C-alpha cells in the first residue's frame, strides 16, 4: 500500500520544526498545512504575506486577500503583509526555513524540473526558481512514477531545470529519499511497500 495524497502531506508535515517559516507550493504541498498539529509554523505566501490562514467561510471572501495560487484566504493574528520585492528578499535571503513543492522530475544530484514541458503550453516559473535557490531546505512531494509508470526520480532531468542541485529531500507515494553524495538514499518506505517495488520504479542511483 503506497501513501495517498493526504498521507504524503502528513509525512511531509513531520519535516517541519517548531518555529519555522515555511512556503508551501500549489497542489499536494498545500495539504501539508492540515497536518502541522501543535507546531508553531508560520506560512509564507510569496505574493506578500506571512501568517497565512485557512480558506474563508462562504461569503467572507476578500478580493484583496489571496494566496500565490490566487485562491481566497484569511489572515491570522500574527499576519504581516509586504510587497513582492520584500517577499522575495526574505526568500532569496534564506530567511524561509523550508519550501515544500511539487515536481515533474528530480535527479539524483538534486536537480529539479517543475515549470516547463517544451512543446506544451508554457505557463511560467512564477516564484519556484527563487524559492529553490533561496530557502533553507527544499522538500519535494510527488508521485514516484508518472502516469505512464516511468520513474520521476532520474539520473538526469530531461526537462528544463527550475534549479540545479537544490533538492534536499523527496517524499513520494512509495517512501522518503534524501539527496546525498553519489545518489539518493532511501530513508523510509511507505507501509507495505517493498524494496523491490522501489528499485523497479526508480531510475536514479540508490545508495546506502
Amino acid at each position: 500500500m503506497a501513501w495517498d495524497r493526504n498521507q504524503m502531506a502528513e509525512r511531509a508535515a513531520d519535516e517541519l520544526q517548531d518555529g519555522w517559516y515555511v512556503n508551501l507550493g500549489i497542489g499536494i504541498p498545500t495539504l501539508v498545512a492540515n497536518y502541522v498539529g501543535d507546531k508553531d509554523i508560520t506560512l509564507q505566501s510569496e505574493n506578500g504575506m506571512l501568517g497565512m490562514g485557512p480558506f474563508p467561510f462562504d461569503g467572507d471572501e476578500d478580493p484583496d486577500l489571496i494566496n500565490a495560487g490566487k485562491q481566497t484566504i484569511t489572515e491570522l493574528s500574527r499576519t504581516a503583509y509586504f510587497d513582492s520585492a520584500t517577499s522575495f528578499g526574505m526568500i532569496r535571503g534564506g530567511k524561509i526555513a523550508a519550501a515544500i513543492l511539487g515536481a515533474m522530475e528530480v535527479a539524483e544530484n538534486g536537480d529539479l524540473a517543475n515549470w516547463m514541458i517544451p512543446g506544451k503550453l508554457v505557463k511560467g516559473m512564477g516564484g519556484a526558481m527563487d524559492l529553490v535557490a533561496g530557502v533553507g531546505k527544499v522538500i519535494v512531494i510527488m508521485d514516484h512514477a508518472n502516469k505512464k509508470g516511468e520513474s520521476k526520480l532520474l539520473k538526469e532531468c530531461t526537462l528544463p531545470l527550475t534549479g540545479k542541485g537544490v533538492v534536499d529531500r523527496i517524499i513520494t507515494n512509495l517512501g522518503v529519499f534524501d539527496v546525498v553524495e553519489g545518489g539518493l538514499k532511501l530513508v523510509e518506505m511507505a507501509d507495505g511497500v517493498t524494496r523491490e517495488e522501489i528499485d523497479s520504479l526508480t531510475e536514479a542511483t540508490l545508495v546506502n
Partner: protein
Amino acid sequence: MGKIYNSAAEALDGLLFDGMLIAAGGFGLCGIPENLISAIKDAGTKDLTVASNNAGVDDFGLGVLLQTRQVKKMISSYVGENDEFMRQYLSGELELEFNPQGTLAERMRAAGCGIPGFYTKTGVGTVIAEGKEVKNFNGQDYILEEGIFADLAIVKAWKADDTGNLVFRKTARNFNPPAAMCGKTCVVEVEEIVPRGSIDPDHIHLPGIYVHRIVQGDHEKRIEQRTVRQREEA
C-alpha cells in the same frame, strides 16, 4: 500643480507613446490598476512592452490590452490564466520574456533605487542564466540581472493623500510598490483620496515622492479563484 486628476484618461494624458515600456502592479487580478489599463486601451497606444507579474485573464486586467493587440512584449513570471495570451504567443504575434518572480520584483525595485544591475543565485544553471554574466561570490555562482527602468508605472493603491503618500490593503500590495518605484512617471489609481494628515505618517507604505499623478476610481476587484470552506468544519 496638484497630483490629483479627474479621470484615468486625464491622468495618463501626455504620458503615452507607441513602443513604450510600462511597469504594472498587481498579482493575478489582485491589486491591478484596472481603470488605467482601460484608459490605455481607449488611448490605443501600440507596441507596448509591459513588465507585470501576470497578464490578466482574457477579458480583464492586462488581457484587455492583449485582445486589442496593443502589447508587443510581456515581461512576466506566470501567464497561465490567459488563453488569448497563449494563442498570440504560440502564433508568434507576442514576445514573452519569462523572469523568475523575485527577479522581476527586484529588477523593478533596483531600478527605482538607481541600481542598474544586481547579482542573484535565482536561475543559476537554468535557461534563465543563458547569455548572462556569472560571478562567483564566496564559492557560490550568481547571475547578473538588470534593473527595469520603465517609461511609465501604473499601480493601484487603497488610499492616497493629495501628496501621493500611499497605503495598500492586504495582499493587494504585491508588485505595486516596486512597479511604482521603477517608473520615470508613476500614475496611481486609488479607491479613496483622503485628506492630508489623515494617514499616520508611520503607516505610509510608499511615500509620495514616487507618485506623480493620482486618480480615484471604482474597482471591480474580480476574484480569480474563489475558494471557501464550509461553516460546519469550524
